[in-house]
């Protein structure tokens, strides 16, 4: 049964988590820019500005995306006279709001407002899907040909990555159901669709891998689904081979072409929330949610959890940055084909993988892995 926090704590978390998420997202975005810049042989946002320049350009640029957003917030907002005003203006707010709500449902180091809600996974997926929908809507509403092309590409890309993404997520969610009654006469019951349950499952179990005891991260138990999800996230976050909808040289800025000032700022904010939500979701689903329940060395467990969360996020960002730096952009049809080939295949393997594993174990074959 879902166990919720007291009301006032929920309210506090509802306010603090999005703010923390925003700044963490800014940091992640800045890190992506920095890492990508380093791979390209340049310095990227200046983290320590030389002393002589500080009066002009400030002392650090760790929060560069934050400054970008602040600048946009102080800029004039132009709305094309031909645009469909209501949709055009509301779309970025819908995107940002849906992601803020998504943050309430996703536990960050075990803390969440409505995480224990039984279907929080479904709610999160739905809320994440709203973002591409708003982009499509705003591209169509902006009455720019480039916006229209951007929307069209966004639709196709969303269709392409959403399938492996959802299959992958649910195959992982089933793991909790399949693996809970370990071994023997396994009923095919569905697992929990609550992200908190998934996190808790990973935190409370561990795997004995040829005698070694390691945490029961789902990335180990179902690596195929994890890779498929990561590939889908690259499309969701518009990382390099998949940044087709807003490819600058092809379609100016796609759906964002006609956006200026505050509305663009809100979209940029939404992008940052999306980055945070995606990374947190991945960590929750596959890396144990960075949840540590033991106070090692006398240090409180939540500090350990924070450290683990940071390390895991940085590793993910590093992977994303390498992919971003080492790739050219696909054409939209090539991207669709690619998603239908590799990530979909991986996610389908991920779907049957737990069954194979469990049946092998049930048949008495020693695969070296057992859940403790």
């Amino acid at each position, binding site marked *: 049964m879902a166990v919720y926090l007291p009301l006032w704590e929920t309210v506090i978390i509802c306010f603090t988590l999005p703010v923390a998420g925003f700044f963490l997202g800014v940091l992640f975005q800045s890190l992506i820019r920095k890492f990508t810049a380093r791979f390209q042989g340049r*310095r990227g946002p200046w983290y320590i500005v030389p002393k002589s320049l500080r009066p002009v350009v400030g002392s650090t640029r760790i929060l*560069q995306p934050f400054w970008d957003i602040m*600048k946009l917030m102080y800029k004039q907002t132009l709305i094309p006279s031909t645009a469909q005003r209501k949709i055009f203006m509301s779309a970025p707010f819908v995107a940002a709001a849906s992601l803020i709500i998504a943050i309430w449902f996703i536990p960050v180091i075990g803390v969440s407002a409505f995480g224990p809600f039984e279907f929080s996974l479904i709610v999160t997926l739905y809320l994440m899907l709203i973002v591409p929908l708003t982009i499509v809507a705003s591209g169509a509403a902006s009455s720019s040909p480039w916006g229209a092309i951007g929307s069209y590409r966004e639709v196709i890309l969303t269709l392409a990555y959403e399938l492996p993404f959802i299959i992958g997520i649910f195959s992982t969610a089933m793991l909790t159901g399949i693996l809970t009654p370990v071994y023997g006469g396994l009923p095919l019951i569905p697992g929990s669709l609550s992200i908190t349950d998934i996190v808790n499952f990973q935190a409370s179990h561990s795997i004995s891998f040829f005698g070694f005891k390691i945490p029961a991260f789902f990335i180990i138990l179902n690596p195929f689904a994890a890779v498929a999800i990561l590939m889908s996230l690259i499309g969701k976050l518009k990382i390099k081979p998949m940044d087709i909808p807003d490819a600058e040289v092809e379609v100016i800025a796609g759906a964002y072409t006609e956006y200026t000032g505050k509305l663009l700022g809100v979209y940029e904010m939404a992008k940052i929330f999306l980055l945070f939500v995606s990374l947190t979701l991945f960590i929750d689903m596959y890396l144990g949610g960075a949840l540590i329940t033991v106070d090692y060395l006398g240090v409180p467990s939540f500090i350990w959890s924070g450290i683990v969360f940071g390390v895991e996020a940085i590793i993910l960002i590093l992977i994303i940055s390498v992919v971003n730096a080492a790739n050219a952009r696909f054409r939209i049809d090539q991207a669709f084909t690619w998603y239908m080939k590799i990530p979909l295949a991986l996610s389908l393997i991920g779907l049957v993988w737990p069954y194979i594993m469990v049946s092998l174990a049930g048949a008495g074959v020693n695969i070296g892995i057992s859940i403790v």
Partner: protein
Amino acid sequence: MGLKQKARLYSPWVFHAHCSGCNGCGIEIAAALNPRYDPERIGVTLHNNPRHADIMLVEGIVAKQHVPFLKRTYEQMPTPKAVVAIGSCAITGGVFKPDDDKGPSYTQGGPVDRIIPVDVYVPGCPPKPEAIIDGIIKAAIILSKRD
């Protein structure tokens, strides 16, 4: 310095408008983005959409056919905005200005400041990337002081 000024100074997005130049300044602007100079250190990024930009870099003599486009591109930029004229051609017409000095040549619609207000002038044929970055920083300082 308030948050507003700080934000504007810290994140100047530039837009490159090629107005009938010889391309020399254009490739130097491209070179100013390369790892040797990397203006992203100080928040300068090139955006290819005037609607997203704060600073417009204009090069070239602005041929007559180009004048309405330049004007419109400038109008498309949301305020506050700044313009940097890059290279001798953008400032006066440079080598393409005819000898007799009775005004611009039959094809020249500019110099740029005749069409749109210019804030910073960067002479050079073409200016070095450092000079361009220098101009952008000067323009960003002007920008941050705008309302």
